[in-house]
């Protein structure tokens, strides 16, 4: 017996160390299923320490008076304490294991947990103290009694908080409270009777009823409410500002006229907003909630006041293995949340959808509450399968071949709240049937064949359902078309170039000209197919489409470079940051973009670009074109001078032209420009160009006084 006693004592110490350890490493502990069973024993074990401790306490205090012999009482108290300490330790361990299963949080839980732990240690401490002090009397005994009483208080706190966790907060005092009905039938609720009056009843009627009638004001019935009190009417329909009631409700809490007065239960901000919105809307005593427009403030407030709690589902969860098996890249089956039995299913990739895709969900069709089938090629077979999804709340059928034959099935889905039928073949008759679905609140019918008048009629008839029509192009929005696109981007060619015109919007008529005239919608050519341009040409194009304003005009000049040089040599060094593709840039027939750092432009700062061009046969040169960039703000200017030397070879070359291009005014500058240099030379096999920048930039121009940049991307020879 002694050995067992010693063993139990030692084990008890072990248990307490274990509890400490558990508390220290709590976040990293993983509980095995076997231990979960132990954990779930918590609600059973916890009754032992409660009873045993109370007994020990009673015996310690009143043992004498009950006439129990002192020795027997001592032994009995020891046994009780021993059992309390043991059962408390086991209860704590079980409780900690149970808590690891998750779902417990908040201050109530924390109080329960720590009070439980404190109680366990208190009980153990008392046991050891009792063992030590049992031979001694007097002061020691008084300490013991105090400790025991303290543990009783801790027991009460821990027990109460624990009950709160199991039965819900306020379980104990709930019967004493005035419980407001938290459920509301949206379809039948009357705004005043079911929303406003309950607030008045809970927060105002204790003083403003027929029994009490403070300030001669009675709010119990509508007639008295309209009559008002000693200061006159309290409610002015439609005017929140003039309604005395609202004024009093909004006064500062410390104000002497504030209602409800300081110390009484106050209205929440939602309740205030609800009364406010109801008065503002005309304070109609009889208007049903369902008749309010879908986006009415009162509706939103009702949603916060009554629907805030998450919906709970009364069906069992589906087998996790089945869910796992049903998942594929083209069908996603997921619970709504970690602990929810409800499932949401989505389908993707219509090429992978077949007649089994939906049928395979049959084992879980009671659990699916949200289903997205948008874009899938649904069939009549799918319709029959879908009819068995009795718990469906949300259904997306956008862009499917769903038509009126589906409406009977949809109207039978008793839980269906929202159905999206955008871009389907549903007609007015079908929709009318769908609208009779009992729980339906929202239906999306954008881009169906149903006309606006019919939808308006149905909306009037089914006020509790929001019929979302979406954007309808009624012809009143007339937008300008965006820019047509001319390809290729490059504007240089040798013999001919194929030009393609396009517009991002389908069905746009492109009208273009090649003679330099402005295109119009009457005379200009209509673009049908790509065309060739063989001479230097300006292509101008505009887009037209019925229901749209015409586009801006887009134009591009294509320049012919009749003679391609066999070789071009750069005799000057371009700026290292803008060396393009070296000499090749100048005859690659590619034009640079608006960004001079795009790698197609040759740039030089304050120094000339000098290039020589070599031809295999002698050619006649009429004009040389240099394509340059202009951006005065960035110091990029046209050349001040262009010098052209030419001849049979570099030795015999003579000065053919020294040309000064016009310097455009800053307000007329175009970003790119082809500078044409008249030359006039025959039998030329060698050309040397010197393109000199402005040094410095002349007065009256941006950045004057600084050396200018020159940028060139192509040289054409005609």
């Amino acid at each position, binding site marked *: 017996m002694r050995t067992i006693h010693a063993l139990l004592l030692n084990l008890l110490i072990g248990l307490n160390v274990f509890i400490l*350890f558990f508390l220290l*490493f709590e976040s*990293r502990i993983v*509980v095995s299923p076997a231990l979960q069973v132990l954990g779930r024993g918590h609600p059973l074990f916890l009754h032992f320490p409660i009873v045993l401790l109370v007994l020990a306490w009673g015996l310690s205090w009143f043992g004498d008076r009950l006439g129990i012999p002192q020795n027997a009482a001592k032994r009995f108290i020891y046994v009780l304490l021993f059992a309390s300490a043991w059962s408390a330790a086991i209860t704590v361990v079980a409780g900690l294991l149970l808590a690891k299963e998750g779902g417990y949080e908040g201050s109530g839980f924390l109080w329960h947990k720590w009070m439980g732990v404190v109680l366990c240690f208190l009980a153990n401490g008392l046991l050891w103290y009792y063992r030590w002090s049992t031979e001694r009397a007097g002061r020691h005994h008084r300490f013991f009694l105090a400790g025991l009483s303290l543990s009783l208080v801790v027991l009460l706190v821990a027990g109460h908080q624990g009950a709160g966790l199991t039965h819900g907060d306020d379980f104990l005092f709930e019967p004493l409270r005035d419980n407001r009905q938290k459920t509301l039938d949206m379809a039948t609720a009357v705004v005043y009777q079911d929303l406003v009056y309950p607030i008045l009843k809970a927060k105002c009627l204790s003083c403003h009823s027929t029994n009490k009638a403070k300030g001669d004001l009675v709010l119990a019935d509508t007639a008295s409410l309209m009559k008002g009190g000693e200061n006159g009417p309290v409610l002015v329909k439609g005017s929140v500002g003039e309604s005395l009631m609202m004024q009093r409700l909004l006064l500062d809490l410390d104000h002497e006229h504030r209602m409800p007065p300081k110390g009484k239960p106050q209205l929440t901000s939602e309740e205030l907003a609800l009364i406010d919105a109801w008065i503002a809307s005309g304070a109609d005593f009889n208007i049903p909630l369902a008749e309010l427009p879908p986006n009415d403030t009162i509706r939103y407030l009702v949603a916060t006041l009554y629907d805030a709690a998450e919906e709970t589902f009364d069906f069992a969860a589906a087998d996790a293995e089945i869910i796992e098996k049903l998942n594929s890249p083209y069908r996603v089956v997921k619970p709504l*949340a*970690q602990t929810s039995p409800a499932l949401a299913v989505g389908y993707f990739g219509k090429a992978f959808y077949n007649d089994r895709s939906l049928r395979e969900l049959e084992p879980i069709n009671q659990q699916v509450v949200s289903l997205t089938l948008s874009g899938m090629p649904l069939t009549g077979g799918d319709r029959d399968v879908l009819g068995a999804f009795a718990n469906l709340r949300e259904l997306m059928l*956008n862009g499917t071949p769903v038509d009126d034959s589906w409406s009977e099935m949809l109207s039978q889905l008793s839980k269906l709240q929202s159905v999206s039928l955008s871009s389907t073949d549903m007609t007015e008759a079908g929709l009318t049937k769908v609208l009779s679905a009992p729980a339906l609140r929202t239906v999306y019918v*954008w881009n169906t064949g149903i006309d606006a008048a019919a939808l308006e009629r149905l909306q009037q008839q089914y006020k509790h359902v929001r019929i*979302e029509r979406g954007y309808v192009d009624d012809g009143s929005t007339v937008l300008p078309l965006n820019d047509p696109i001319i390809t290729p981007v490059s504007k240089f060619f040798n013999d001919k170039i194929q030009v393609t015109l396009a517009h*991002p919007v389908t069905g746009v008529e492109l009208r273009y000209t090649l003679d330099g005239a402005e295109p119009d919608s009457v005379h200009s050519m209509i673009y049908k197919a790509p065309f060739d341009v063989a001479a230097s040409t300006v292509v101008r194009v505009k887009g037209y489409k019925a229901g749209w304003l015409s586009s801006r005009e887009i134009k591009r000049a294509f320049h012919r470079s009749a003679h391609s040089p066999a070789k071009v040599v750069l005799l000057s060094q371009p700026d290292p940051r803008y060396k393009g593709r070296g000499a090749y840039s100048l005859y690659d027939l590619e034009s640079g973009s608006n960004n001079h750092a795009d790698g197609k432009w040759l740039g030089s700062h304050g120094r000339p670009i000098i290039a020589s061009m070599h031809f295999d046969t002698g050619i006649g040169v009429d004009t040389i074109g240099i394509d340059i960039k202009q951006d005065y703000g960035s110091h990029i200017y046209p050349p001040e001078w262009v010098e052209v030397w030419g001849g049979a070879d570099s030795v015999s070359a003579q000065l053919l032209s020294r040309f000064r291009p016009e310097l455009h005014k800053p307000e007329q500058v175009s970003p790119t420009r082809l500078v044409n240099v008249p030359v006039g030379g025959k039998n030329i096999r060698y050309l040397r160009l010197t393109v000199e920048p402005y040094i410095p930039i002349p007065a009256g121009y941006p950045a004057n006084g600084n050396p200018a940049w020159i940028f060139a991307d192509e040289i054409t020879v005609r």
Partner: protein
Amino acid sequence: MKKDEMIAKEVANARLFQNRRQFLSRLSIGIGSAALGSLLIPDLFSGGGVDEEGLMARLPEFAPKAKRVIYLFQSGGVSQLESFDPKPKLREMMGQDLPESIRGGQRLTGMTAGQATFPLVGSYYDFAQYGKSGAWVSSVFPHMANVVDDLCIIRSLHTDAINHDPAITFFQTGAQQGNRPSMGAWLSYGLGSDNQNLPAFCVLVSKGKGNGQGVYSKLWTNGFLDSVHQGVQFMGGPDPVLYLSDPPGTDRMSRRAMFDKLAELNSLQFEAFGDPEITAKVQQYEMAYRMQTSVPEVTDLSKEPDHIVKLYGPDCLVPGTYAANCLLARKLSENGVRFVQLYHQGWDQHGGLPYEMAMQAKDVDQASAALITDLKQRGLLDETLVIWGGEFGRTNYCQGNLEYNNYGRDHHPRCFSVWMAGGGVKPGMVYGETDEFGYNIVKDPVHVHDFHATILHQLGLNHEKLTYRHLGRRYRLTDVAGTVVNDILV
């Protein structure tokens, strides 16, 4: 020494010995219990974190209001004073110096710190009230004004950073320095992908005509999370996703065979090294293979009906524009992409604001509003959270020379406006209040961390529980701060 005392000492000594023995035996019990307890911690000595295992389910903790997010990021810092937060006082006090009591020692950027005066400047554009909610919207956003009853405008956002890169990094990752996972990566990590044929986190970038600031791929990084959570950029052009199409001459069968062989080799490598990045790589190859079918389907805008083109504006058919990205965002979102991140550059109006901002607004106004309308008419707005806003606001005083029709504004972190729509956020609401100078918040401040906490909450995630263990501690998107802004939630 008296006999009694000696006996007492003997007894005490005996107790001492006994106690040592007891001590040792009980110590062993204690250690034994601890050892027993340690059996409950499978990875006590392995050093790994357990956080990710808890998240393997990739499910929201509680039923979410929003399933997806489309974040229309207006990069550069939209001026709240010319968009959603009208301040008539600034027009009255045009040109007068910002009172020091209002500025309250706010640090300034190097661009205006040297200014001798801080002349107040009122909005060049007029404001008007729209919709049932009567929210104020400036005249540059006529289309957004039309859908204002669907928006929840927050005027009281504030941030810690005053320059673009730290501020935008802060908005994306919850920290001003880089290397933390972006919001989309966190969501991909926490909730996984709905459509396994597309990345959970897609990125679309466009550029307006205004003064712009860089947007770099570090903003859509997975940080320390697994690289499958990285954002994937969709480009405007023939190849929306880079390197996705097969090289010329490769058919789909041989591609498949190559992936299978590669997966085999990778799994050998994984067995040898156990590096989870190898598995991530295999998953990415597989997704890329499926994306070869799904991406062309999603990015094909040519089948959009004419009235959709009118809704978004014709630029929605020009790849790479903001309008096209909005349309694409709708299509991606409709196809289950968890987080679509748009960036539109060009909102950094240090000068020439009246001119530049009008152009910027023209680029985004119609398409942003169209996205709301379009989601709504398909029944998707309720489950999609749309966010519109930049990384900070702009100062109420002028940067540089002040003319009534030509002025600039510097960066301002203390208050700015963004809007949210759908996804369980209250529609037709204006939240938060700034002072009459538009400089400080006087009511309901929302910090970037609060903003993040709220977004995660709408997707069914507790921002304090979405953690990842890295470098010896747990990290969150909101790090150690953040409170859900319940006032704006339905």
